């Protein structure tokens, strides 16, 4: 086969560049400028897919995004696989490899065909649900088979070699669609001085003008397009985006455009010789005004066997003839209810092919195009329609009959016309999708037989989208919309642009025809397809209405009408019209359609952009990160931070296990000295005469008497009395405090302080600023900590001079530092703050001096074990937003008698928060010392009870303690503090049950002597 359907001349293709492509394993030639669809038609490929449900052969129907059948899997290699590509929108390139999406094992003959044969009587709507629902356990098995048979495309199994990105765009006027209305709108707005973006989804701009028979200013429409696009391209304020689909219209004129950058050239950017470039790009456009000039889609008529290959939408045939020089058949029958479709018959005849007849549902069509057709000798059959197509793999004839559209009956004898192509036109549906993405409902216009957009703030409509179809009117409408949009964005029109002159034509009115009546009832006639992609038939819609589905929305869900990759672009209106007819209602009474983003499928790559791989999420590093990496740290993600988790050492050539490393680090701190990078803790500088008062209101405990030089631990609650964060706050000066927060709470606590200051207590004179990143924080802790510190600091470390919960300023390793005697390990500890740029110097100096003390770096895991041994909580681990300070046994940190009703206080006396049997923090000691309880494990009191057991609480933190040589845990337990010494049970999912004793939360050094040595 070699492009048998290619005309010898014409079209906008480059015949000097022959491209070779493969479809379903067979090689074909095509030309540069072809789409995959036009090239397939040129080569006479009739069957491109098998249908979703009935497995019927399907051919190309349309020429744009509305195509329901020619959905292909693209890609020569596994990594380049792209599913669900519309062949009508895919530019042909050399080496393109495509396969049918549907049609396992192949499109010509397949094992599913029995389904299609039986389907007539055995596959009503809801068939899958009804048939395969029982037994429920088998659905998974059924589904695999059905899906494989149905085929919905597949994602690649290898990672995508291409890159994608996002571009944030801002403009005054975004024009969507570069047809006659969009081009005049863009030109008008740009000449007024507005920043304009003009996008169009096709390979070249021009829209319907590219296949128009009409002349503009006496020249061909394509010439005018070329001239206009050139002028726009020369304007600095204009951004032209061809191959760019406006897929989503979001609130406040935020529009997402999907630009195909190299997809039209090759499988990958590298294959296109453009390695490193972006394959496709998502433009995130914020526009002052949007001009929607998205045109219209022609509706096919619904008649029997209208899915047999060779049935096409009339306008698509004109597109293939005029733009691609392809005549997809020899003998044409056109069935129509309007004048405009006659152009297809004229185009077909001019291409040297036979027009068997035009079948017009109207009694007396007499518009200019009709006259022209008659004058050229084309037979016009009026008051009739194609009732049924003949043929199975390809149309072989059309059965034509006179019809009465009001009574929905056939009224005459059936005439059989031999043909291989049936073009149908049921009128035009404005492409209103974007206008309804934010929920605005379109309006049905009976005079226009279509839905037009409802009013959308910030959006102007031009041309076909509001059912303005005549070319002269469309051009004028674009000019008007462009001027209005520019003016609304603040740009006055300097002078009106001259609208190109077009010959005006008379047209006879379109008649309302959606489904063609058949000699048999819909249920008995051969299938009349409404939605080709989802195999929804007129009978299916009719049956759905009989079964009580009265709203089109319910009909949709029952029949699958409008699902799938084409989102019902061709079928929706016909489906609604049929439902309306069956229910004896008008179309708007059955429902109005609202579409959602996206207009056409968008690849995940474009949605993800550059936010993938190592840029998927930010990684935050402390000033000491380099040292941690060089010293073999394993890292843990804490928020966005990368924190050292533990530092495994090499012992006899083998790397320590985490268990061994953590045990070693724990013992080093308990017996020698360890060091932790605590820089990630949130740090907030608080200044102002009312800083102290503010702290008293935001923390549960007292701050009135904290003297400069002292540090205090504080609890912060929300006003519901539940703990939200904790940390130490140091008094730096009478009006100056340094608050620390948990790592995860840093940003939210700062915002929390601002919230109360800005909204409730603006009179308090205080300012908060984050210094989290400014200071690096290192914790030196363990019995040997003082000795080590003494070697590097000029601060007097005498235990009487520098007491627990004091802070002092001095130098550490020559660097100015604030040193805090606070402890999260229960051991003697010094927390050092230095300006982050000097942190590595100080850290390294500590190690230089620490060698003799075997200074041991430790990570978050050891920190957790050590603090838990002391019963010290971590907000967010031992608490979950439902735990009060009282639940934690921290009554000592609650200042009930403070004068100001601080945040959280009132809620602590609500009946629920004051209950005796609330979950309270306790320690758990497993009876078997080798057991480390699972965090999250549920606690029950009676192991013998039947399921569901009464759950009394759960484990919040659990570790193995090397110093205790036992597992241990913190848990919240109902009425826990009155259960000391009791045995509780923890049933595990594997059927075993652990036993544990309820103990005090402080497992080690209960007298807190070690931190004061």
């Amino acid at each position: 086969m070699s492009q048998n359907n290619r005309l010898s001349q014409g079209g906008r293709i480059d015949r000097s560049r022959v491209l070779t492509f493969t479809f379903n394993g067979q090689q074909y030639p095509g030309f540069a400028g072809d789409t995959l669809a036009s090239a397939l038609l040129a080569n006479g490929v009739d069957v491109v897919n098998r249908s979703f449900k009935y497995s019927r052969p399907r051919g190309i129907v349309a020429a744009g995004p509305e195509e329901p059948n020619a959905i292909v899997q693209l890609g020569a290699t596994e990594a380049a696989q792209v599913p669900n590509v519309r062949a009508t929108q895919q530019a042909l390139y050399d080496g393109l490899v495509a396969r049918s999406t549907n049609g396992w094992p192949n499109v010509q003959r397949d094992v599913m065909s029995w389904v299609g044969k039986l389907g007539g009587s055995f596959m009503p709507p809801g068939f899958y649900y009804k048939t395969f629902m029982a037994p429920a356990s088998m659905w998974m098995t059924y589904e695999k088979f059905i899906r494989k048979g149905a085929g919905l495309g597949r994602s690649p199994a290898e990672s995508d070699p291409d890159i994608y990105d996002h571009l944030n765009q801002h403009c005054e006027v975004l024009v969507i669609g570069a047809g006659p209305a969009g081009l005049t709108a863009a030109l008008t707005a740009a000449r007024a001085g507005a920043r304009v973006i003009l996008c169009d989804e096709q390979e070249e701009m021009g829209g319907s003008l590219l296949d128009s028979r009409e002349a503009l200013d006496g020249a061909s429409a394509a010439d005018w397009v070329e001239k206009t696009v050139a002028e726009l391209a020369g304007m600095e304020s204009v951004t032209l985006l061809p191959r760019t689909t406006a897929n989503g219209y979001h609130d406040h004129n935020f529009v997402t455009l999907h630009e195909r950058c190299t997809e039209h050239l090759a499988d990958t950017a590298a294959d296109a010789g453009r390695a490193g470039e972006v394959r496709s790009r998502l433009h995130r456009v914020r526009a002052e005004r949007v001009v929607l000039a998205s045109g219209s889609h022609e509706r096919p008529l619904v008649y029997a066997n209208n899915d047999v290959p060779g049935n096409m939408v009339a306008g698509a045939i004109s597109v293939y003839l005029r733009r691609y020089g392809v005549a997809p058949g020899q003998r044409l029958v056109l069935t129509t209810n309007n004048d405009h479709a006659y152009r297809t018959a004229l185009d077909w005849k001019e291409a040297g092919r036979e027009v068997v007849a035009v079948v017009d549902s109207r009694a007396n069509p007499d518009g200019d195009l009709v006259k022209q057709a008659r004058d050229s000798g084309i037979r016009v059959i009026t008051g009739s329609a194609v009732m049924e197509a003949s043929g199975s793999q390809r149309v072989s004839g059309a059965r034509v009959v006179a019809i009465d559209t009001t009574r929905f009956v056939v009224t005459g004898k059936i005439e059989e016309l031999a043909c291989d192509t049936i073009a149908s036109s049921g009128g035009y549906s404005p492409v209103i999708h974007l206008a309804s993405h934010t929920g605005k409902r379109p309006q049905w216009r009976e005079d226009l037989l279509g839905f037009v957009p409802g009013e959308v703030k910030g959006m102007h409509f031009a041309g076909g989208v509001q059912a303005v179809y005549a070319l002269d009117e469309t051009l004028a409408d674009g000019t008007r919309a462009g001027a209005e949009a520019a003016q609304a964005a603040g740009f006055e029109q300097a002078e009106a642009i001259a609208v190109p002159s077009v010959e005006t034509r008379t047209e006879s009115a379109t008649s309302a025809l959606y489904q063609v009546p058949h000699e048999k009832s819909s249920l008995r006639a051969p299938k009349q397809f409404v939605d080709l992609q989802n195999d929804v038939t007129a009978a299916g819609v009719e049956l759905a209405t009989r079964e009580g589905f009265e709203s089109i929305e319910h009909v949709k869900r029952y029949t699958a009408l409008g699902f799938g990759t084409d989102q019902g672009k061709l079928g929706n209106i016909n489906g609604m019209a049929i439902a309306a007819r069956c229910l004896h209602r008008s179309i708007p009474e059955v429902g109005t359609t609202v579409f959602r983003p996206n207009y056409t499928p968008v690849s995940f790559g474009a949605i993800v952009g550059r936010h993938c791989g190592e840029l998927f999420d930010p990684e935050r590093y402390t000033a000491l990160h380099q040292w941690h990496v060089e010293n073999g740290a394993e890292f843990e993600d804490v928020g966005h931070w990368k924190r050292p988790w533990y530092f495994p050492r090499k012992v006899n050539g083998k790397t320590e296990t985490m268990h061994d490393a953590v045990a070693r680090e724990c013992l080093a701190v308990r017996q020698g000295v360890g060091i932790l990078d605590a820089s990630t803790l949130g740090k907030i500088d608080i200044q102002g005469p009312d800083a102290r008062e503010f702290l008293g209101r935001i923390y549960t405990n007292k701050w009135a008497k904290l003297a400069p030089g002292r540090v205090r631990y504080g609890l912060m609650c929300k006003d519901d009395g539940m703990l939200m964060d904790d940390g130490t706050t140091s008094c730096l000066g009478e009006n100056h405090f340094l608050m620390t927060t948990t790592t995860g709470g840093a940003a939210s606590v700062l915002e929390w302080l601002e919230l109360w200051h800005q909204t409730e207590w603006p009179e308090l004179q205080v300012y908060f600023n984050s210094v989290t990143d400014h200071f690096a924080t290192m914790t030196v802790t363990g019995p040997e900590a003082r000795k080590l510190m003494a070697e590097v600091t000029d601060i007097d470390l005498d235990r009487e001079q520098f007491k627990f919960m004091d802070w002092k300023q001095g130098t550490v390793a020559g660097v100015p530092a604030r040193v805090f005697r606070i402890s999260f390990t229960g051991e003697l500890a010094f927390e050092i703050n230095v300006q982050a740029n000097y942190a590595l110097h100080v850290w390294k100096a500590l190690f230089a001096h620490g060698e003799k003390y075997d200074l041991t770096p430790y990570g978050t895991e050891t920190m957790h074990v050590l603090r838990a041994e002391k019963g010290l909580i971590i907000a967010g681990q031992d608490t979950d937003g439902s735990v009060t300070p009282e639940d934690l046994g921290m009554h000592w940190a609650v200042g009930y008698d403070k004068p100001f009703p601080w945040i959280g206080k009132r809620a602590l006396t609500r009946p629920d928060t004051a209950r005796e049997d609330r979950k309270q923090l306790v320690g758990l000691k497993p009876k078997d010392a080798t057991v480390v309880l699972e965090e999250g494990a549920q606690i029950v009191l009676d192991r013998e009870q039947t399921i569901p057991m009464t759950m009394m609480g759960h484990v919040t933190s659990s570790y193995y303690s090397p110093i205790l040589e036992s597992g241990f845990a913190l848990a919240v337990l109902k009425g826990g503090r009155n259960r000391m010494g009791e045995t509780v049970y923890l049933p595990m999912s594997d059927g075993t049950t652990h036993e544990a004793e309820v103990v005090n939360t402080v497992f080690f050094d209960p007298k807190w002597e070690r931190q004061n040595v």
Partner: protein
Amino acid sequence: MFHIFCPYCDERREEEEFHPNGQAHLVRPADPDSVSDEAWGDYLFFRDNPRGIHHEMWVHRLGCRKFFNITRDTTTYEILETYPMGEQPTITAETARVRHEQGVQTADGGWQTVGARPENSTLNEETPS
């Protein structure tokens, strides 16, 4: 994606810079200790959920870090005004113009339909607030 006018930065910014903070104009009782449990519970847990005009607090989290209020129509997502802390809205449910009749909406992908049959009109009527 909202485009929000920050009354402090004095220009419109992308929604990513902001964070919503719930209902605006909540006033913490001045003397919580003397407030009944029920009233305190209302303050803590109960919020308006109007169809139509709603006043809500937002914070320009990644910009100037200031809190401010927005009057927003929850049916159209239109932001009718923004104003700094301490000020009152000029547009309220009472002053708002009559809104479009709303239908019953379903939440699903693809195109959706609104039950527009006359007999469904009771479903479509606004709930009196």
